[in-house]
């Protein structure tokens, strides 16, 4: 949207300026309210409102530019009265007004943190995030997406949890002397601290505590799952890499080392990773010759996944990102299933959603070898799509019960032995599992 704004401004400058006195700036939007005095849902609503206003203003500007051009064209015809000049002046006035309004709205949006990430540190009140306009122009209204996509059951749980949190916060504020025992769940401020100090705390490594940083999660993954290659990227870096894929089989060893996540194994690169962990927005999980999964984090550096997609290990191109779609049916089906699983993980246990998601993704390493638990075959013709597919469903609900068990048992369930996670064809999968 900002890109269009600049385009129109440029357009405006190209025309001969008949300098009319700039009209008094009557702003059409509500005066900027102090963000501290308002509850986050209202902030989000306001921000979405303003984005809508900005879009309308931009549309008005485009129309105005058209009218200006029209006036100029008419003026260039012979035998004209002063009518075009009048029209031109009128349009000029209203254009300037629109641009002024747009600037105002833009400032408001900036202040409320929509166009940049300045609000990240204070965005976590009540678990809602401000909508973000990404560098490529996409608007990510994270909170809305969650609310719309989450199942009704999940949002009730969310509301209860939020209410409990609000009460606990109030209690702590007004009755500190009563604040003896801490809830094991961990508080917002505690988890925020952990997120902003990406310390590789030793005690976090061996249990599924809720306060896990991004680097903890990834170190954990690397330790538990041998075939997996985890890499992290900033968002634009990932697009570059995606366009350069597929690397031929021989080139795997020549990947840029700074993108490989080495965790605590090497000291200096670990420090480098710690510094850039704040900007990590894309996680790539690569099982050579089996699949490549792309997970996007929002905001960057957090442990909040917001989308996931699966691709063939031999695929490449700029369409390979966490909201993209593989050219192969099998990976498209898995991506669909994964999107539902992601919403489930976020809805039920959003603090460990990333950890659960990544582990669940890794259960697909048996995609081409594990037979369906229901029919006992690897390939089956799916009635609905008339395609022959391997079992693309891996249940995700069962992972949530292992919240309090140690990582030991989780890694054993992912072994190829008798405890291997279940797999089902689309047609064999029933929601009762």
């Amino acid at each position: 949207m900002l890109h269009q704004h600049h385009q129109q401004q440029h357009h405006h400058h190209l025309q001969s300026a008949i300098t009319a006195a700039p009209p008094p700036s009557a702003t059409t939007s509500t005066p900027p309210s102090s963000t501290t005095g308002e509850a986050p849902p209202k902030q989000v609503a306001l921000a979405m409102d303003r984005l809508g206003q900005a879009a309308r203003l931009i549309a008005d500007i485009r129309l105005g530019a058209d009218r200006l051009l029209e006036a100029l064209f008419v003026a260039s015809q012979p035998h004209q009265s002063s009518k075009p000049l009048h029209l031109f002046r009128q349009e000029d006035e209203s254009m300037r007004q629109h641009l002024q309004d747009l600037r105002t709205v833009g400032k408001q949006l900036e202040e409320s943190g929509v166009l940049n990430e300045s609000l990240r540190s204070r965005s976590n009140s009540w678990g809602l995030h401000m909508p973000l306009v990404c560098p490529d122009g996409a608007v990510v209204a994270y909170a809305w997406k969650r609310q719309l996509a989450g199942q009704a059951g999940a949002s009730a749980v969310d509301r209860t949890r939020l209410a409990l949190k609000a009460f606990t916060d109030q209690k702590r504020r007004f009755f500190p002397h009563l604040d003896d025992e801490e809830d094991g769940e961990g508080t917002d401020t505690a988890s925020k601290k952990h997120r902003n100090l990406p310390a590789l705390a030793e005690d976090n490594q061996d249990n599924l505590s809720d306060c896990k940083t991004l680097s903890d999660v990834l170190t954990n993954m690397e330790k538990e799952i041998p075939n997996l290659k985890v890499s992290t990227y900033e968002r634009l870096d990932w697009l570059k890499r995606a366009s350069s894929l597929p690397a031929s089989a021989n080139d795997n060893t020549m990947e840029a080392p700074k993108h490989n996540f080495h965790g605590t194994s090497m000291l200096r690169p670990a420090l480098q990773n710690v510094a850039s962990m704040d900007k990590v927005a894309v996680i790539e999980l690569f099982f050579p010759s089996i699949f490549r999964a792309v997970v996007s984090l929002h905001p960057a550096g957090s442990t909040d996944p917001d989308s996931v997609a699966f691709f063939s290990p031999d695929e490449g191109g700029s369409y390979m990102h966490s909201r993209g779609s593989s050219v192969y049916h099998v990976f498209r089906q898995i991506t669909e299933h994964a999107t539902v699983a992601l919403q489930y993980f976020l809805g039920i246990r959003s603090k460990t959603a990333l950890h659960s998601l990544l582990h669940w993704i890794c259960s697909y390493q048996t995609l081409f070898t594990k037979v369906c638990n229901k029919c006992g075959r690897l390939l089956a013709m799916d009635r609905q799509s008339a395609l022959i597919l391997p079992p693309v469903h891996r249940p995700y609900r069962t992972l949530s019960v292992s919240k309090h068990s140690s990582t030991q048992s989780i890694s054993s369930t992912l072994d190829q032995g008798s405890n291997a996670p279940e797999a089902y064809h689309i047609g064999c999968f029933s929601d009762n599992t």
Partner: protein
Amino acid sequence: MSVVYCHIFRRLISYNPYRKKSTTMPLKRVFFWQPNAGSTVNSQILNEVSQCVESINGVKEGRWKATLTFYKPMLRDQALSAEFPREFIGISLPEQPNKYYFVLRFNKIVLESDSSIQLIMEKLQSYKSRVALNFEGFQYQLGDFQLRVGKVVPSHSENLRGIVMEVEYLPISSLEKSKQIMEEFFDIWQDAISKRSLPGRFIHIEPDFSDYGLADHYTSQHTAVQYTHVTSQLIASVQAVQTGRN
């Protein structure tokens, strides 16, 4: 003289067995039709096979054609022919229109070269085509699978000598990881085709790719090797039928 030919030939192809870097392709199995004892292959069988593919939701896409040529060296002195490889085969594949593949079956060598090599060979008069076969037919899409069904005919005749089928699984290229998938697909295929009670069956014999220096990642060189083996099987079965008749 023969040394000169070999030398020129090698230079033209720039053969280096330690650098088999070919583009990875989705993996493929080539099957050939083995008629039952006492029966032969005919175009009715070909029609039934095509219908069977369509019955498992295969969507016909277009035609395909591959060629396979047996070469013999052009020698003044025929006695020298023993020094030359016994079976020297050239293959062109539809998925690689700019390439031409050479296989020396008994020496276990496979080469990928530019398709202009055929013109060069002709100009040099170094090797002559002894027998040429065409594999041609229709291509079908079944989701992530691609099937090709084709007849085998000598290049200048319409005599049906055999039927081949290619089964390709597009999403991956690792031979090892895809083994089960391919086997199960063939089971599904067998279920479908056995309902038609045809006098024969499709067979796949996996060549030992490592003998040829080929890796787990599938390439068109693997396909060339498969075609070589399939052809020798076809010839053997045709000869067996002829011997049976005599």
